[in-house]
């Protein structure tokens, strides 16, 4: 009987094969390729027949916006356009077709002739990051910081203490909220990047092919982080449901490790001068800052209001952890600043440097605030001066708010362009950006 049930379920899951929907399956040349010989044609291969809106369904644009494509035609499930002789340079292919279901599908990708292909983010016509992207990235940072901070507070700071179940559950809710925010912000950030690359009005963007964007470093980071944060959300939920703190351990580790997706796709992974060392430094910077800011905010709000009996222990333990985190943030941040800004004058002479200066000023404010907690409040608490506990809550919230603003400036910094480095051998990572 059980065997029959299994067979029935499998048969339902895998009935006879059938297909649908117009999907771009492959292109010639492939997304992001550097070609030694200029292509004579551009070919799009779909999984079904498509129609063309006009003979200029495929455009091959150089960095000045000159179109090198000849008229397009369909051939079976392919769309083909001849191309005039392409000189050395980077090219953007923009295409559109009518799917069998009458939807206009569109897309963009890049390739290079004897030069590395630019990232699809830098396709001809793309405008680059906007203020909206800054805000979305800030929200993304906040979600990650809340997830890592809440889980880190429970597992590192409150470890071994008798934590009331109500507080445990509130911490899990905070971590889950962070995951949800991170997931939504990730989707929004990916959509904004894709919209910029595709350069389509919103109605047409909805039917735009995002596959080339998903194949970039940013796209891979988005896909990976989406999957991992969904899993983290599920683990946190199960931890909350079953009162199992041990389920938060894999959730915390996954969140910390895969927050590195942003490092994998940021300046310190793809710009000239980048290396695996800058990538790791960026990940350490982000993870430590998330744990610091998120942990502080969670402690100030949840522990202070939900478990007054734990305030003293939580504060003292967090004060021991914070110097380590701050040390990591400063060491990694300084290293990356040296790599990104080879000259000290870049700090005030470039936009990137000026944003960095603002960030440094805010971090300094947070450090002074933290030093007050560490060197004044903590010794007092260790001398059993519990009177300070009631007043220090607001101060902790104030320090964490400075951290929240630091994350906003960090978001602007990530979307800013660092100054060009002096000419040197191209980095392998810079080539990798095209995929």
């Amino acid at each position, binding site marked *: 009987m059980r065997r029959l049930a299994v067979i029935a*379920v499998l048969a339902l*899951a895998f009935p006879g094969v059938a*297909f*649908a929907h117009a*999907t771009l399956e492959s292109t010639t040349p492939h997304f992001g390729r550097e070609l030694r010989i200029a292509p004579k044609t551009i070919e799009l291969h779909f999984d079904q*027949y498509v129609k063309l809106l006009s003979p200029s369904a495929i455009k091959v644009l150089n960095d000045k916006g000159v179109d090198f494509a000849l008229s397009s035609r369909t051939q079976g499930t392919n769309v083909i356009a001849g191309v005039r002789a392409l000189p050395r340079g980077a090219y953007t292919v923009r295409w559109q077709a009518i799917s069998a279901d009458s*939807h206009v599908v569109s897309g963009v990708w890049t390739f290079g002739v004897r030069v590395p292909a630019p990232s699809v983010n830098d396709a001809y016509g793309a405008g680059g990051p906007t203020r909206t992207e800054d805000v979305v990235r800030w929200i993304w940072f906040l979600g990650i910081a809340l997830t890592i901070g809440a889980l880190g507070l429970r597992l590192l700071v409150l470890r071994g203490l008798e934590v009331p179940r109500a507080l445990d559950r509130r911490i899990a809710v905070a971590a889950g909220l962070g995951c949800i925010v991170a997931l939504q912000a990730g989707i929004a950030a990916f959509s904004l990047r894709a919209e910029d690359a595709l350069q389509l009005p919103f109605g047409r963007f*909805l039917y735009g092919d*995002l596959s080339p964007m998903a194949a970039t470093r940013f796209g891979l980071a988005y896909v990976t982080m989406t999957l991992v944060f969904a899993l983290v959300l*599920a683990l946190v939920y199960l931890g909350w449901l079953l009162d199992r703190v041990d389920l938060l351990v894999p959730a915390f580790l996954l969140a910390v490790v895969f927050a590195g997706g942003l490092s994998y796709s940021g300046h310190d992974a793809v710009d000239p001068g980048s290396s695996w060392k800058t990538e790791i430094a960026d990940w350490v910077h982000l993870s430590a800052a998330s744990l610091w800011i998120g942990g502080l905010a969670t402690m100030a709000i949840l522990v202070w209001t939900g478990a007054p009996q734990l305030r003293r222990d939580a504060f003292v333990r967090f004060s021991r952890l914070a110097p380590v985190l701050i040390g990591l943030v400063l060491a990694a941040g300084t290293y990356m600043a040296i790599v990104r800004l080879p000259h000290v004058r870049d700090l005030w002479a470039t936009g990137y440097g000026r944003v960095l200066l603002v960030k440094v000023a805010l971090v300094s404010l947070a450090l002074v605030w933290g030093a007050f907690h560490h060197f004044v409040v903590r010794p007092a608490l260790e001398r059993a001066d519990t009177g300070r506990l009631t007043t220090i809550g607001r101060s902790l919230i104030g320090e964490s708010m400075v951290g929240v603003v630091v994350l906003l400036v960090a978001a602007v910094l990530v979307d800013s362009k660092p100054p060009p480095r002096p000419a040197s051998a191209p980095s392998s990572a810079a080539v990798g950006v095209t995929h």
Partner: protein
Amino acid sequence: MKPHAEMVHWLFAAGILFIGMCLLCEAIVGRAVWQMRPWRKYLWPGVAFAMGVLLWPVMAFFTNSAIHMYAHGSWAEVLMLAGGAELGLVHGRLKSPYWRLTWPLAFVVTGTAFIVHEQNPWFFARSAFLHHLLGWTFIVAAIFPLALVWRPRSTALRACFALTICVVSVQLFSDRDVAPIFGHLSPLAGEPHR
């Protein structure tokens, strides 16, 4: 590497059918009998929650259009929410029966996403017809889980809820095809090619 879209539809249709059959069994034998084995009370809410989690890879990997990405994402979220709420209720972590409002919410969001992401008329092609049908089935049938919030013991309502989910499953099994039979209702849908 990536499975064909229709394979994914069938896998989820199988999961939905499983949930529908569990609900139907529960409606027929009664909740007390169904929950005689403690693990059974977690069965269909757990499958629903897991399917919500598994919809995230569908959203992330199927990026051939933005609107499909958003539709899959919205389904992932509402299925996780409704499945999670039901798990919380059967486990006793959640007390308020109003958490069951997440089911009509999931139905309405799912139905709306089906209808919005299908821009062709009903009789354009099989997939268009079934997208509209799925969308309206979800929206109209949201009345059953909504009524169950206030009349949770009604066998008729629970049977209707279960049958709705079974019907949705059948529709999903039939959704992705341009087969010669009933494949192209309009010549505008393109040449039959399979």
